[in-house]
């Protein structure tokens, strides 16, 4: 059974039992290291390298922008492109944020999910969306895993977890040009990815994270600084991605460093 369908069933159950929905805490004074324990650590070193399998673990991640997607079936190519082309904040395709930088966004309001249920659910779509202003923070993080668990980033920081958009960016530093490499991404769910401002991947569909699930055409990581940027959008359920560069034989590329401002 598709998870989205189960969620709908649960929503119906919720209505019948009239569960009291608890308001989600608005937490501004959160210990990031503690909150993201097991998944991320705040960046403490000047630079990092890809792991042995080439996965990029150092990222600047923006707190999620609410974009209520009632199911994961909506992520067609055109829906993905359309909704990830909206300007959510200024310079979103060029900014190189610092840890703690704030971003002001206007986003669609969604009430907190019911955390007392076994299976927290996205809210049903409302007839008249309400928009709210919010201030979101960039976090410089090293993932504890080869993947970046966006869902745990959101829940750890007590933010909206379903129907959200995550902006992520990192800097790849090369001593020489590295030619004929491909960006390989596994993504749950829809996403767009750019290398040095050029879109290299559009990932549509109700997809799940598999290593090297989709790759870009061949690109060159140029000598010096390269900007790798991705935006991931989910509906109800898990959200995460893993990203690495692979060479023409499918082997991971590891000969570069990764920095955050």
């Amino acid at each position: 059974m598709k998870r989205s369908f189960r969620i709908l069933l649960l929503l119906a159950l919720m209505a019948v039992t009239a569960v009291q929905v608890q308001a989600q805490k608005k937490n501004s004074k959160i210990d990031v290291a503690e909150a993201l324990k097991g998944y991320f650590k705040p960046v403490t070193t000047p630079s990092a390298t890809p792991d042995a399998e080439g996965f990029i673990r150092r990222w600047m991640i923006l707190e999620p922008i609410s974009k209520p997607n009632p199911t994961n079936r909506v992520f067609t190519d055109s829906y993905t492109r359309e909704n990830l082309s909206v300007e959510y904040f200024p310079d979103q395709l060029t900014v190189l944020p610092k840890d703690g930088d704030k971003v002001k966004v206007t986003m669609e309001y969604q009430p907190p999910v019911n955390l007392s249920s076994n299976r927290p659910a996205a809210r049903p779509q409302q007839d008249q969306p309400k928009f709210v202003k919010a201030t979101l923070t960039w976090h410089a993080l090293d993932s504890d895993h080869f993947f970046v668990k966006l869902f745990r980033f959101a829940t750890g920081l007590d933010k909206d977890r379903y129907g959200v958009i995550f902006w992520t960016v990192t800097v790849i530093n090369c001593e020489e040009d590295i030619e004929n490499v491909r960006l390989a991404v596994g993504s749950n769910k829809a996403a767009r990815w750019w290398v040095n401002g050029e879109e290299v991947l559009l990932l549509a569909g109700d997809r799940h994270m598999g290593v090297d699930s989709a790759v870009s055409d061949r690109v060159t990581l140029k000598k010096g600084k390269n900007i790798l940027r991705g935006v991931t959008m989910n509906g109800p359920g898990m959200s995460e991605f893993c990203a690495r560069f692979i060479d023409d034989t499918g082997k991971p590329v590891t000969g570069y460093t990764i920095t955050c401002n």
Partner: protein
Amino acid sequence: MKKTALSGLTALTALFLSIVASAQIGSPYIHDPSTVVECDGKYYTFGTGSGGLISEDGWNWHSGGVRPGGGVAPDAIKIGDRYLVVYSTGNGSGLRYSSHVYAMWNKTLDPESPDFEYSEPMDLGGSNGYEDCDGIDPGLMMGPDGRLWLVYGTYFGYLRIRELDPKTAQPISEPVDVALSCEAGEMTYNDGWYYLLATHGTCCSGVNSTYEIIVGRSKSPTGPYVDNVGRDMIHGGGKLVLASEPRRIGAGHFGRFIVGKGIEKMSFHFEGDLDRSGRSVLAIRPLMWKDGWPVAGEPFENGEYSLVSERRGYALELAVNNVPMAGGMRGFNRNGDDNVVALEDQKLEDVIGTWPEGEISLRIGPELFRPHQAWEITEVPELGGFIGGAYCKITIAGTGRALAATAGKEIVTVPEFTGAPEQLWRIDRLTDGTYRIMPKSVPGTDEELVLVSVADSTPSLGVFNPDSDNSKWNLLKH
């Protein structure tokens, strides 16, 4: 190519309709062909009588091969930088079953080459006319250890194997009886086993022949060669490899041709080709290996297929919006009192209006048997071929939209097939039964690249790796 050129192409295609694409084209008329051998980029096979066939591409064959000595059922093998050709003929005694095998060396098989000169024939022995052996139908094998073997014989008694000196081709062992009730023996080695392939049944009766290729295997080159039910070939055993196929009757005189690791062909003749007046013709088919046995692949069949990656099992598809089908989830009701109806497949006309008109890129996605995953694969024999097949066009079924290689070593679909080389695809059945799909050429590079799953969801072009499922595809018939 412009429209006029395209209609010219269509007319040309119509001309070729009379040719069954999966037969070799040209004049592939031969009986008892030797194993196909490559020499300086051309392919050669010799037959009973004199002469043989030559092909520039392994697809279009014509006469022109030169082999003195006459006689019957030759075989050929490349050893070092020389070619060894064997054949058999009467030894002059006039006795009915008195036949000997003869061998000749040549530095090239190309009659136009200045180096083309056969050595004097050497007698490798055979039968004396009284014994239970008929010393014809020789076959040669170079073993994995560099030892050279000769097999010969027919139904009149035993097939026999003897070792030859690979430097001189002179016999260095006494013959050993290894099989009964067959002829046209050919030995080969694969993955720890020696195989004796031979031909059983009635030959030389055109479309009424019952010739069929059989096999047994052994851990030793001198046998015993045992079939799949444990029966020794010296008891008449033999597992069938190929008998006939629709329109082509009586497979015999097996030869193995290794294109490269994971890609093998078998060359042989059909006694009677119904599309060619029932004449005996050269045939080349994929050779596969399954559970330690050689298996003949069928000729390629035009049709509508899914191109399914061996990597993940997903299907090559146009990168277009998924158009949902009407209906959707019907709930979890298990009652049988619903009126059950058959729903129609999604049709091309349901979705084609949502597709862009120009080039459309590709991806690989879960197989749903939808129009953007349905590929019409059609041989275009008039545009050339390769050893064992004609180039194909691969189009979205019901449209002219064609798969093409691009200068960036990627793939794309173009709105119409033009016959350009980057739109022609060589489809080889691999030894494990999957397929390699390779463009005739890739713009801007001389590299030989094939269709690969570079990621679960991403197709591309890359170097063929026979050990990687990324390089392999399955053709799932719609």
